[in-house]
């Protein structure tokens, strides 16, 4: 299993920020279409979030996949809860579920 430091690092990120997006690239310059799509939606909804660029941290890149038990990037956490990746965020946005999630914060 992953080392304690890494686990704490991930835990802290998720607990200290309402909305965390583990992504490829940065919100200003995404390096992956799927990550960009999620950033787009968050921007359209004017949601404050922090983007964690896993391309800059190989350990974190593997660690978050294990932590979330989710094989791919991007990964969205809202209020300490794992929401999903690009497909799920897009579907929730289309159905209005995402807007509801943010307005009920």
């Amino acid at each position, binding site marked *: 299993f992953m080392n304690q430091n890494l686990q704490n690092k991930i835990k802290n990120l998720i607990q200290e920020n309402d909305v965390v997006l583990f992504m*490829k*690239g940065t919100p200003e310059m*995404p*390096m*992956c*279409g*799927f*990550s*960009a*799509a999620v950033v787009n939606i968050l921007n359209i909804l004017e949601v404050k979030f922090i983007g964690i660029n896993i*391309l800059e941290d190989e350990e974190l890149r593997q660690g978050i996949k294990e932590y979330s*038990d*989710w*094989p*791919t990037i991007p990964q969205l956490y809202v209020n300490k809860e*794992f*929401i*999903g*990746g*690009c*497909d*799920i965020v*897009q*579907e*929730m946005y289309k159905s209005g579920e995402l807007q509801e999630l943010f307005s009920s914060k």
Partner: protein
Amino acid sequence: MGLTETSIHNKLSERLKPIHLDVINESNMHNVPKGSETHFKVIIVSDLFNGKSLLQRHRMVNELLAEELSGSVHALSIQAKTSQQWEDSNHHITKSPPCLGGSGK
């Protein structure tokens, strides 16, 4: 059809008994060598998804494809619907976002 594509198709067919299944190799849309099997889109319609949240459905698919996902596949777009949703949406498939370069590896 590549080996990975076949494997994905077989596993999902066998375990989820879908009424509709498309396994699409989208690797050529991305910054990877020709002939790669790294980026896939799966359209799967199964009533085993009834009553399950998006996250639960995706996790079901991820679990079945754990081997592929720890191998060459590092992007998996999933559209998981029940037969009712498939009919209601008129068999609509959401397009995958364009590549933005990735990690360039």
